[in-house]
């Protein structure tokens, strides 16, 4: 699948290092871990992630956990910070690391957020600790003369990550919680339209649970605002070989492919992801059961463009019911965190 959109820049640069843990901090419901990983820090661009091995050298947990990079700093030759919630034995083990422990870290992985050439009004939407990768992006956008507004949401106040930073660095920062314990009661999508109007948003960058990304994309499309969505699909390797983290994504040629979020993502143009079909194989996806290449034609050029989201999910084998509402909070995020 690689190379279909040109050689991904991300393919050229990751490092795998034995990092040294600098700090593990409790941040409300989450943990923030800073690791000295010079090779990773030096190459980082906002939106990229690290894949961390858990459990030590003799571990019975074979799969790496993928986490968005929250921040890199130049101290100690280069440090990387990521945010996680304890949701399984792997993340439990991570939370028990202490200063000077070593950690096998591969990164930075994946395609970063694309940055506009001109200054823009950018709205950064985060669900739960999906906000973690947005602050480094905000710095970059501001550095280009753009205005940055934040809209962060979660189930409760302790699950909103970075509210303070958002208020400090954003032109505006709107917070929503489902229980009303911080900011407005409700979900980010309840206030999205209002914030778009007030901030005169040109572009939205979003990270959070699938349901939230789907809702944000669909709302933004009504205002013709492009969305760059960072997905939290569960991964096994994070490096592009295992084919676990695939989503149905429409290519430039109009053909839907089961696309790896680790190497062709994790940032996708929101309108190209078939959110309603995530967790299924859409019938018109390249190579879907019953799909036939046209004889004598190159298979990937032969199909006609299909509008997104035609096939209702759930009709496909293995289709799962769609989430009724956008959810926020760690239970809804899938990447690395259920483990």
């Amino acid at each position, binding site marked *: 699948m690689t190379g279909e959109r040109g050689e991904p820049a991300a393919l050229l640069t990751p490092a795998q290092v034995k990092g040294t843990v600098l700090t593990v901090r409790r941040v409300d419901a989450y943990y923030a871990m800073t690791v000295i990983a010079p090779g990773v820090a030096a190459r980082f661009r906002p939106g990229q992630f690290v894949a961390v091995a858990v459990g030590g050298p003799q571990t*019975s947990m074979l799969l*790496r956990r993928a986490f968005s990079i929250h921040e890199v700093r130049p101290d100690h030759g280069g440090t990387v910070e990521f945010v996680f919630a304890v949701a399984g034995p792997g993340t439990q083990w991570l939370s028990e690391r202490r200063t000077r422990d070593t950690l096998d870290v591969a990164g930075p992985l994946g395609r970063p957020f694309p940055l506009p050439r001109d200054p823009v009004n950018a709205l950064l939407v985060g669900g739960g600790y999906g906000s973690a990768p947005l602050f480094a992006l905000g710095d970059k956008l501001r550095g280009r003369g753009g205005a940055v507004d934040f809209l962060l949401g979660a189930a409760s106040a302790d699950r909103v990550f970075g509210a303070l930073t958002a208020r400090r660095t954003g032109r505006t920062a709107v917070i929503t919680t489902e229980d009303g314990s911080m900011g407005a009661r409700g979900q980010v999508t309840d206030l999205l339209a209002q914030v778009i109007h007030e901030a005169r948003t040109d572009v939205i960058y979003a990270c959070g649970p699938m349901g939230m990304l789907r809702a944000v994309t669909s709302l933004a499309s009504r205002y013709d605002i492009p969305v760059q969505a960072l997905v939290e699909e569960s991964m096994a390797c994070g490096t592009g070989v295992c*084919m676990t983290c*695939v989503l149905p994504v429409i290519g430039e040629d109009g053909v839907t492919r089961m696309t790896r979020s680790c190497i062709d993502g994790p940032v996708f143009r929101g309108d190209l992801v078939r959110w309603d079909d995530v967790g*299924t194989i859409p019938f018109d996806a390249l190579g879907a059961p019953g799909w036939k290449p046209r004889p004598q034609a190159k298979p990937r050029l032969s199909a006609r463009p299909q509008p997104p989201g035609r096939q209702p999910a759930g009709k496909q084998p293995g289709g799962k019911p769609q989430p009724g509402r956008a959810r926020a909070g760690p239970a809804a995020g899938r990447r690395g965190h259920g483990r």
Partner: protein
Amino acid sequence: MAVDLRSRLAHVELPSPILTASGCAGAGRELARFFDVAKIGAVVTKSVMLAPRSGRPTPRMAETPSGMLNSIGLQGPGIDAFLQRDLPWLLSRGARAVVSIAGGTVDEYAELAARLSDASGVTAVEVNISCPNVEDRGQVFACDPGGAAAVIEAVRARIRYDVPVFAKLSPDVTDIVAIAGACVRAGADGLSMINTLLGMAIDTKTLRPALAGVTGGLSGPAIKPVAVRCIWQVHEAFPDVPIIGMGGVRTGLDALELMLAGASTVSVGTAIFHDPSA
């Protein structure tokens, strides 16, 4: 210190006995970011089919104790794209390519073999007759000596005479020696074992299967003793048939264990997910 690690895959010489296992290295391109793909014995590519294939729905992966279940379902670009893009890339990097092929019918395997015959630079062919992630278990040729032999015979007939054919076997059979014998008699130059074991996990929170495909293939160190047993049994019965051993190899000593059982070369699979430079 230079150590001579040259190894043989049937009549083909490799610089090292360590290979990647099919499905765990794509076509090498992603891993080239972490190590030099020309330095290992060969890259065994992810099984390629005639047509592009989307695979199974997600979630496709579940971690299990010292292992993982996968139900990828042979997602891949199809043989055309493979020959146009992936194989030339591997060769341009100086790597050797063992091409794994998979099909739903004997004719599909034969057609794939014919297509590979026209391509140059194929070090060997691994015939995947044992992928557990197909809709119909009856399609797993490696569960039946007759079916296995029919596929191997068809591939051997169509592939160039100097390209060795390896049959990839499933451990999920009553008598793996019988299947191995059928493949060897049908013309297989060697055997690859083992493929993943069919397994299943249920999420006790959601009370639903952990995989969208319900069942999946179990791999990782958890299955290493099964691999050692299969290799040992088959090597006892056919001491002259070269075996590519795989199943749970993570360290050099694991590889040695498979070789002691009778493998001539060893493939590393799931461990690559854990450590891409392993």
